[in-house]
């Protein structure tokens, strides 16, 4: 489990670092909204990084427990974003809908990567 855990942590840390760097560059290039997209994504990677730490603390030596905890949060947390996305779509607020979609896509990507790493052989 240690290797999978460190791979997952490394992935999340790299994502945060990449988004932070991209945000700085986009701001310097007068692309404020795209810089904001990066900040939003960095926050989401950061949230799941924290959740992974909590999952490990609460399930020491239990890879299935970690997986169950993390998967549960991957389903629970984006729930609010899905609702906000739905509401934004209903009122025709395409800009807000885009931001909520971005959060959902990022969470989906985290989930996909988690399953790839956690279910890999070895």
């Amino acid at each position: 489990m240690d290797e999978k855990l460190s791979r997952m942590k490394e992935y999340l840390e790299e994502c945060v670092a990449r988004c932070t760097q991209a945000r700085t560059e986009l701001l310097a290039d007068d692309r404020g909204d795209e810089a904001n997209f990066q900040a939003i994504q960095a926050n989401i990677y950061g949230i799941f990084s924290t959740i992974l730490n909590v999952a490990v603390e609460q399930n020491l030596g239990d890879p299935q427990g970690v997986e169950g905890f993390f998967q549960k949060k991957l389903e629970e947390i984006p729930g609010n974003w899905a609702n906000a996305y739905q509401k934004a779509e209903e009122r025709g607020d395409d800009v807000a809908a885009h931001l909520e979609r971005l959060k959902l896509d990022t969470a989906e990507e985290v989930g996909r990567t988690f399953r790839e790493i956690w279910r890999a052989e070895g």
Partner: protein
Amino acid sequence: MTEREAIGLFKCLADKSRLQILKSLALEDMYVERLAQRLDLTAATVSFHLKKLAQAGAVSSYKSQYYTMYALNRALFDTTILDILQEESEEADLQAQRDADYRQHVLDSFFQDGRLKSIPAQRKKERIVLQALAQQFDPQRIYPEQEVNLILSRYHDDFCTLRRDMVGEGLLERGPEGYWRTKQAE
């Protein structure tokens, strides 16, 4: 264009990606994927920017076969910044009220019992006082200098300075036949 719309437009334009999109659309109408490929942005990002540009009235869209095409709203960009600045302010009434309050404050400070306590040293304040004095003159009449002096002496002993400054400020005009109130004094 209202002030709110102008602010929305300027905020929207203050972004490099959106400016690049507009520059592309200035060349020809384009669809999202074409803009994304041209500007090296994701289609989702281009869509986001196009929504903001559409909200600001900078672009519009239309269907063409399978595509939604985006076009520059050229009428908006024919508007000059000076046109926007010359639009009447939504705060015009408020500003007029503030100006009136300021005028009244100056008059209250310099007039006492219907007499001018002193001639203001500040030009802006003096003009307000002189404008008030100019109301004592009938716009349809020509006044001999003596009568001008008599009217102004009711307000201050230094009527010569008042008369001279009223001419200097363009509130009274002088000719061989005498003085008359100008339109500026109205």
